[in-house]
């Protein structure tokens, strides 16, 4: 249900898997690579995952969502590798009889995935500098390293 993918994500196919005549609502979320972060122009991203644990922890999050909210089904895929501006990094889709549960579960999954799943993001800036997001330390070493490619 929760997958890490090194291929582009295909939302249409994922959403087709969620079709269910019991469902009145399908809430979905797409995380896109945007062109700036904290005011700095971004030109590309690398995502990297510890795949076995990422999928295990991701599935735990989906199981929690099923327990907390009256939903029917759910899918989540996170992309890894080199991404360009505008690329789809994460897709979450949730079906439910009613919209409240669909929205709340979708939001819960995105929030928890960002906080808990072992996936890392390296930003490449316009000037050539790079940074692993959330990994800065007091010294400058971790904040800015030469671009890797």
């Amino acid at each position, binding site marked *: 249900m929760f997958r890490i993918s090194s291929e582009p994500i295909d939302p249409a196919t994922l959403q087709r898997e969620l079709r269910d005549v019991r469902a009145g609502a399908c809430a979905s979320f797409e995380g896109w690579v945007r062109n700036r972060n904290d005011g700095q122009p971004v030109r590309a991203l690398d995502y990297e995952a510890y795949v076995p*644990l990422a999928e*295990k922890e991701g599935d735990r999050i989906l199981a929690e969502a099923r327990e907390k909210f009256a939903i029917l089904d759910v899918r989540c895929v*996170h992309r890894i590798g080199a991404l360009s501006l505008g690329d789809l990094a*994460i897709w979450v889709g949730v079906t439910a009889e009613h919209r409240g549960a669909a929205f709340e579960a979708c939001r819960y999954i995105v929030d928890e995935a960002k*906080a808990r799943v072992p996936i890392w*993001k*390296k930003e490449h800036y316009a000037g050539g500098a790079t940074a692993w997001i*959330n990994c800065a330390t007091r010294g400058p070493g971790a904040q800015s390293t030469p671009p890797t490619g």
Partner: protein
Amino acid sequence: MSKTVEVQYFAILREQRGLAKEKVSTAAATAAQLYDELRARHGFTLESSRLRVAVNDDFAPWQAPLRDGDRLVFIPPVAGG
């Protein structure tokens, strides 16, 4: 009490170590001790308080005793989404 464990590195730790995986012979009794040892040896910038640790592909307490053959991953602050 020396044992051999496998350490896999991701993201900033992989870059600072310069490789993705290595076997390490260590006298460390816990994952916490092992990270301190490796941090001193390789100059990792992140303090252990900012990391989590996984043993054999699941999250584990820092104080869990290390066993010969364990596979460890030190997990930098995540940033998915």
